[in-house]
């Protein structure tokens, strides 16, 4: 019966993986990836998929109902410090990010998008329902599908970020529930919120896309990747010692693999020769992000990994100076220049630290409508010379309807700093449009810099099943370069804000000004003036009467 079912509805398999990378700064980076592959197609018209085994049903139903071709959602608390930590395996911006490619049969994309965000909001217990047309854009080049299919019509793409979204345990629990083993067994026992949220950086994501079933790519499979990245701090979690263990990081050790997993591995980056115990003979090399790294591999499906104690507690110790900064090949940052509440200038600075290679980057900026961009002030300068972008896609904002979208292809000269500036004016909102804490400021989501960065070593282009998960997320097309996406920090911008606590004073003042000032002024303007003859005293008037009769000149 089981064999029949699986051939009818496709084979599914589950892999789990944890990569631990000691960082130059003394912090430690742990990256979890859980992959469920299912050889089926939700979008087929004729057969309705209703039997779920490893793939979470809640997501499967959403995919088929809204005709989703590809879905990427991430929740991040904190900012990835590229200058100290290098590049992450899968980058994500602070807050929530959601981008979805819909199937090209969808007629009402906006309607589907609206409903989808509301459903996802329920599934992940997040405020994704705040995504609406005012913060959704359709990037033309920055977000290409990562899975099968060469969809290029960006009418079917929707992208939105919520930079203010706070990520906490209530988002972690539903995310863990999507795993086949939940948090009961396997690597996911390490995911305890009291430790995950005692860290410098926390990011969890779900990526769903169609992939090839095999190398020949004859049929399609659905891939669900759940990733969780966390960086523990040297000082607040590590007591200032570059000495980490699984127990110190997660207050748990590993005792078994998830029984449903076909592969369950822990990779530890030993390229910089840290002391590692227990030692493992299993080594693996992988080319990740333009760099050849060596990993010790612990296979949790094998009993000997856990040793005598039936528990695996990795210990990692290294030395080295932690003060300095790294020089990642591609790096970007952003800030608001100027002061006062009328105008300002957004500066985006992109660094190419490659000593001799120039390469192009795609910069995408989505700015809310209440910052009114003066696009004629847009300047791009590299090495204090004007740098003309070879491609510009700009969609102006419509007040209260849609944000600005600016995409540019910029060539970065070798070893240079490129500065993109654009001035803006802060809009005065209607008083009901202010958020509950208006004096906190308003957020502008991160800009996205996507690039193919020249690689120092040859990238691995052949597709194999047993490649580690962390190195196989983004398909590598050519050996000489690798894909990097860098998110800048979001901006917090203060808008002119009325004093909401003083409506009474305002009413009183306005009424007084109108009544006294305007009233008297209006009165003076509309009145006709005439010179008033001084009235004479009674005696003089009588005298004048007599004088008039007598014909003598009158008294004044």
């Amino acid at each position, binding site marked *: 019966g089981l064999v029949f079912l699986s051939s009818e509805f496709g084979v599914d398999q589950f892999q789990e993986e944890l990569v631990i990378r000691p960082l130059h700064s003394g912090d430690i980076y742990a990256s979890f990836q859980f992959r469920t592959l299912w050889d089926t197609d939700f979008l087929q018209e004729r057969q309705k998929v209703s039997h779920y085994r490893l793939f979470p049903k809640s997501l499967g139903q959403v995919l088929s109902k809204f005709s989703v071709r590809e879905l990427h959602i991430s929740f991040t*608390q*904190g*900012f990835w*410090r590229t*200058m*100290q930590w290098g590049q992450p395996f899968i980058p994500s911006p*602070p*807050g929530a990010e959601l981008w979805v490619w819909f199937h090209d049969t969808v007629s009402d994309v906006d309607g589907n998008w609206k409903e989808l965000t509301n459903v996802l909001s329920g599934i992940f217990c997040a405020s994704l329902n705040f995504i609406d047309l005012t913060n959704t854009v359709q990037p033309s080049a920055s977000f290409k599908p990562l899975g099968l299919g060469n969809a290029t019509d960006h009418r079917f793409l929707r992208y939105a970020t919520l*930079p203010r979204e706070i990520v906490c345990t209530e988002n972690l629990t539903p995310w863990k529930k999507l795993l086949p083993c939940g948090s009961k067994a396997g690597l996911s026992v390490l995911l305890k919120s009291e430790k995950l*949220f*005692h*860290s*410098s*950086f*926390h990011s969890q994501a779900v990526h769903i896309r169609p992939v090839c079933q095999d190398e020949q790519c004859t049929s399609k499979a659905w891939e669900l990747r759940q990733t969780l990245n966390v960086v523990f*701090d*040297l*000082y*607040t979690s590590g007591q*200032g010692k570059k000495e980490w263990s699984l127990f110190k990081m997660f207050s748990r050790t590993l005792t078994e693999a998830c029984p449903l997993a076909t592969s369950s591995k822990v990779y530890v980056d030993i390229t910089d020769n840290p002391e590692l115990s227990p030692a493992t003979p299993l080594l693996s090399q992988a080319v990740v992000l333009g760099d050849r790294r060596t990993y010790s591999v612990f296979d949790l499906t094998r009993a000997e990994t856990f040793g005598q104690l039936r528990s695996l507690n990795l210990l990692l110790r290294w030395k080295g100076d*932690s*003060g*300095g*900064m790294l020089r990642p090949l591609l790096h970007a*940052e952003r*800030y*608001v*220049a*100027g*002061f*006062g*509440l009328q105008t300002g*200038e957004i*500066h985006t600075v992109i660094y190419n630290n490659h000593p001799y290679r120039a390469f192009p980057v795609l910069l995408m900026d989505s700015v809310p409508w209440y910052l009114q961009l003066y696009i004629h002030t847009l300047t791009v300068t590299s090495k204090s010379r004007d740098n003309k972008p070879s491609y510009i896609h700009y969609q102006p904002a419509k007040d209260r309807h849609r944000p600005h979208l600016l995409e540019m292809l910029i060539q970065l000269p070798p070893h240079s700093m490129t500065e993109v500036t654009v001035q803006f004016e802060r809009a005065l909102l209607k008083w009901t449009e202010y958020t509950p*804490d*208006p*004096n*906190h*400021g308003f*957020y502008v989501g991160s800009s996205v810099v996507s690039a193919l960065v020249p690689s120092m070593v040859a990238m691995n282009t052949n597709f194999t099943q047993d490649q580690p998960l962390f190195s196989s997320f983004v398909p590598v097309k050519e050996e000489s370069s690798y894909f990097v996406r860098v998110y800048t*920090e*979001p*901006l*917090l*911008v*203060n808008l002119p*804000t009325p*004093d909401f*606590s003083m409506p009474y004073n305002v009413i009183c003042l306005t009424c007084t000004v109108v*009544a*006294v000032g305007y*009233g*008297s002024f209006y*009165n003076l303007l509309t009145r006709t003036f005439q010179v008033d003859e001084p009235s004479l005293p009674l005696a003089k008037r009588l005298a004048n009467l007599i004088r008039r009769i007598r014909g003598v000149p009158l008294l004044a």
Partner: protein
Amino acid sequence: MGLLSDPNRRKALTNLLTRLNAPICMVCYLAAIVWFMGLAFEPFTLRTYMSENAMGSTMVEERFSSGERALSLAKEFDAHKTKAGGMPVEWLVKAMQARGLEVFTQSFSRKLPFPDENKERYMVRGTNVYGILRAPRAPRTEALVITAPCSPGNSNNQAVGLLLALAQYFRNQIFWAKDIIFLVNEHDLIGMQAWLEGYHHTNITGMEYSPLQGRAGSIQAALSLELSSDVITSLDLILEGLNGQLPNLDLANLFYAFCQKLGVLCTIQGKLQRNDWDTAEGYTHAAQTMMLMVLKQACGRSWGDHGLFLRYHIEAASIRGINGFRHYKMDVATIGRLLEGMVRKLNNLLERLHQSYFFYLLPSLSRFVSIGYYMPAFGLLAVILLLRVSFPGLMLHVCFSVSLQPSGPGVLTVLTPVVISHLTGVALYLLPVHLQEMAVEHFPVSETEAVVLTAVAIYTAGLALPHNTQRLLSGEGTEQGWKVLKLTALLYLAVLLGCTALINFSLGFVLAVTLVPITASMTPHMPKALSALAMVLLSPAFTILYCVFIYQELIEAPVSVSEGWMLFLSVISQGILDHALYGSLVYPLLALFVYPCWLMFWNILFWS
């Protein structure tokens, strides 16, 4: 509103105002002075209270205990500073990096318009060092700043020591929601200005600086530390910033609340609080404290590093350690705890500080006078100017003369002195700095003296110039002419003082107190010599001189006349420097507007 629209009653009112004009003006003036002095009387003031919920009800526990370490760091810093002969940049960078901060430096240079003799600097070149404590799981959108100026000599080392010790302690805590920037700035305000301009990528003062590499989003609040002694007996809070701007009162409340909590002796304007408001001494004490605040605010300069933040809408205050009250000794750890508490509460803020007052005067740390209470004092003075506009015959006369003969000689006779007065003002504003080289060539003075003495010379020359020129240009002045001029001048002064008082109450009030009585009563028919003397004695320059003497008296460091004169000259040079270096507006305001306005009245006196 029948009072204004009914012609009979309006006439009655006008008659009353015209008949009793002088007595009413006198009463207003006295009432203004009395009102102002009454502001310091405790029953008339309000008790300060914390308005911001995020800082009020939340409890924080202060645990900082490395006071000894702070002092040893201060010694180390001192040693390296002496060795480097200035800011020990490398040592600081290493020290901050070792404490887990992201460290950046900024170099800057500035050529002053003329040498600053008080601080002995002309070509200023320096480096700011700052380290950013990145808050865990925060997206770099908000920051707090703690600064310690690195001053020459062996002052302020303890502040740098405490800053580093605090950085180390703060780095190990998990509760930060905002990034914290620890800044050590060289050449006090100039370094601060360079850093702020770099951070906000503006250039308003012509400073040369290298761009900043690390930022942490929008700065919510800043504290500046000044500790120059191992033994600290009390802490002084300094609020007055550039152009008389003040930080939100909640920042002062926060400081006061923690001083109370930790039992730290705190002062404002260097004056302790007294509890005996009902005695004469108690009142005098409060009045002196308030007067000091008014004088400091009126001069429009930044009284600490914090003052430059205010332009950027960042609430900031300076905390200065004082070693003067022998019986109350406190250790550095207590100051550290106080700062820890303040920073933690600021860290709790959800919004920028905006709940409490931005316009206030403080007769003591626990009492404040809000804008609603002090504005009537100025209003009473401004009313005098408006009443004088309706001075018998003036308004009516002018209205008729202008409407009956629009192209008559009246307009021209008025325009000439107005233009000439303002040209003199422009000369007073531009020439001192631009003519310094010529002055140095021809006279045996230094550049600074040249600038100040040129300013004084132009000011004095201005007294002779206008009425001569007026006579030269348009012959005999008419009775009508001076009335039109007086009307213009009165309205001008009223608008000028009104605007000034809205922005910087203290400056507006001080100017009004001296300018209003003489300008309101000025006519050409008064005894020339006596009125001229009175006018000169109540001119803007003499106002500054009086302020110098009063200020010295209030800080209990009285000076002799010659010392006062030297101080007066240095105040002028500082005013010009503050304008050039930080964009203080008091010097241009006085030179371009107040002085010409006063000259217009001077013209009336010598009308013939």
